């Protein structure tokens, strides 16, 4: 093995990769972008990573129920977004704006007192929880939240309300008190996805990645392929307009995207038993629009990329960033506000939201209209960017 030969190869490879400024810049900046996305998505503490948005319905309005609400507000696993009535809470839950409803029923404090004095289980106070099971975060976060909330509630708030001594007692005594003070019947119900196959629960998480990636990689080489083959300059010397080239290519890829969407839909429902609750056509629309955004994004990269290497690098970094920030790996609600804005701007977050609503929650058009419209607007905006970019690039 000759050092000189290795040096020559090293030098030549450096010259080759640095000759394309954009690709070289991507080599250097790519990891920074990915790490920024990764860090931005996870920069809060570990506990907050599994934080859920909760609406609390306090029907009792007593001192004790207020204490319980305060305990929820202090929990690092819970973000109390709303305090409202039961009907509004259910509407918010349906719209997917919150992950769980906590209902503290009327007569809560009285029932706690009665139960403590009479130990009658029929008089036990109730707290109902409805947890969104269509996304992995709530079923994990809610038990953790309950654990932290209820321990303090039992040890501090309930004894105080019952005028029991809480200071200078041994742990054994505390255990006895806690055992006696199981005064609240916590009823946790899972909404959506309960008894659903694992495929159905993961369907909204994985299919957007699959369809978006196909679209991105499929269209990424369309224009750049013409550049690599050298056919683009010849084509541009014919009367065809640049916009006609873009639209012509996109139409073909959209037909393929339609096929992808059909395949995903048919295999998911027929082979893997996905029970589409919100309508097959609506699900198909969500799948196709996800592909559409991938296609237009890929086409956009293709309009200005000089070579295959550049476009593949761009696609790879895009996929990582979109997956990290799109709510598939880390919940968007746990990200810092500024990062949430970026995450909400990405098509995958809307695709995920729409697919969850249609496939798992069984919601109709009115609940996914915005997500579908956003996917359409996003895809079309990127298509316009592709048209402008292709017009500006000198081939």
């Amino acid at each position, binding site marked *: 093995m000759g050092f000189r030969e290795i040096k020559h190869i090293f030098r030549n490879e450096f010259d080759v990769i640095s000759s394309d400024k954009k690709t070289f810049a991507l080599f250097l900046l790519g990891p920074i972008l990915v790490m920024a996305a990764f860090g931005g998505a996870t920069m809060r503490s570990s506990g907050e990573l599994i934080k859920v948005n909760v609406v609390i319905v306090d029907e009792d309005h007593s001192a004790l129920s207020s204490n319980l609400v305060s305990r929820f507000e202090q929990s690092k696993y819970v973000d109390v977004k709303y305090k409202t009535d039961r009907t509004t809470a259910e509407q918010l839950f349906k719209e997917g704006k919150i992950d769980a409803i906590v209902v503290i029923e009327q007569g809560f404090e009285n029932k706690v007192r009665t139960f403590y004095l009479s130990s009658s289980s029929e008089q036990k106070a109730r707290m109902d929880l409805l947890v969104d099971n269509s996304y992995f975060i709530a079923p994990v976060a809610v038990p953790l939240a309950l654990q932290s909330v209820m321990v303090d509630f039992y040890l501090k708030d309930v004894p105080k309300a019952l005028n029991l001594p809480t200071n200078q007692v041994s742990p054994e005594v505390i255990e006895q008190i806690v055992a006696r003070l199981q005064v609240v019947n916590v009823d946790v119900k899972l909404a959506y996805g309960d008894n659903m196959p694992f495929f159905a629960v993961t369907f909204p998480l994985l299919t957007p990645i699959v369809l978006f990636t196909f679209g991105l990689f499929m269209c990424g080489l369309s224009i750049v392929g013409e550049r690599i083959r050298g056919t683009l300059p010849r*084509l541009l010397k014919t009367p065809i307009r640049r916009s006609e080239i873009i639209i012509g290519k996109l139409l073909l890829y959209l037909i393929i995207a339609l096929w992808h969407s059909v395949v995903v839909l048919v295999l998911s429902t027929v082979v893997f038993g996905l029970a589409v609750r919100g309508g097959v056509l609506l699900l198909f629309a969500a799948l196709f629009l996800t592909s559409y955004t991938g296609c237009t994004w890929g086409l956009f990269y293709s309009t200005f990329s000089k070579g295959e290497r550049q476009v593949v690098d761009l696609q790879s970094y895009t996929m990582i960033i979109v997956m990290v920030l799109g709510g598939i790996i880390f919940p968007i609600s746990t990200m810092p506000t500024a990062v949430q804005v970026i995450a909400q701007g990405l098509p995958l977050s809307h695709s995920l939201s729409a697919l969850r609503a249609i496939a798992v929650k069984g919601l109709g058009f009115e609940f996914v209209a915005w997500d579908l419209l956003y996917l359409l607007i996003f895809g079309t905006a990127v298509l316009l960017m592709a048209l402008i970019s292709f017009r500006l690039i000198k081939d």
Partner: protein
Amino acid sequence: MPPIPQPQISPQSMTQPTSRIETRDERGPTRNAVTPPRPAPARPKPVTAQRTVAPRPPAGIPQPTYVAPTGPLYATDQMLVVRGLSVVRGKKTLVHEIDFAVDRGEIIGILGPSGAGKTTIIKVLTTEYPCSVGQVSLGGYDLASQARLAKQVFGYVPQETQLYEDLTFLQNVTYFGGQYGLDQAYLYEKAQRMATVVELGDRLNDKVGRLSGGQKKRVSVATALAHDPEFVILDEPTSGLDPATRRGLWKFLKSINQSYRVTMLITTHFLDEAEYCDKLLIINKGRMVAYDSPRNLKARMPGEGKAVELEMFTLDDYVSAKLSQFEAKAKREDVAEMVDRSGYRVKVFCTDISRATSRIPLLLAELGLGFKAMNVVDTSLEDVFIYMTGERFREDE
């Protein structure tokens, strides 16, 4: 039809801003400032009328209308008019003030070494580069404002074949031809005819990637001709081909030119190929050196196309030094206007050949220099290039 007077290239026309060119839509009684006045002959037949092709243009494309001139003729038989063309890219001026006009049916060669500006001119004509200064009219269309219409007029054969190698000859022809709005049935028929013309009738359904370099060039030419262009621009079509294939391609191009009266503009750095052209535009370092027929260019040389060629026995430093003395002396005595040395051969360009043939041996004898042979030879285009630019034409570039 009498030959159309060509604009004379003079130092004045090359330095002063030139007049605006009328485009097809503007043709009318106003005299075109760039063409000399002459009696109005009958309007030439449209080129397409001579061909057995589908009617053009395709639907939706506005066809230029020829307005019969009532005053002095606008040169409707001029396919290309380039006036005062300069191209500036960034801070660099690639070509300076180029002026020439091409008549219908002519083959024009743009001749110059690599980097002379040939490709820049091609890029302007194919609308890839805008003209920074000047005006270009192609087929009567102004390239600055009617580029899309001008694109209907010309076919382009790039230096590299720029074909889809994974597609067949037939698919390439129909695809590129389809960009001009022609229907597929016509293009299928056209592709079959073109395949016969380019002697690749049995390879029509073969993928282009499987063809040889020469065959690919022929497919490229056939593809450029698919929409029956009136004007074909060929960028170094014979580059990279062996001599036999080059000759074959030129034979084919001449036959197309003669059969269909297709105007051709060809760039080349092969001087022998320049002889096939009706006119040559010689450029060097971005500037126009001459524009005329090969015959006239040679006739412009001293000796009216003849030169004296000496063949030396050896070529060492001594002989070289003596030849320098000979050159100086010959010029001093008006025996030679220019002496060009290339290896063992020395070419003497002079006005009076007979005087030169008698004086040269004496001058060499005075310097004590012998020679193997002395012949009177025809001047070549390379000689023209050297004479006009002061530089040797390097074909290998």
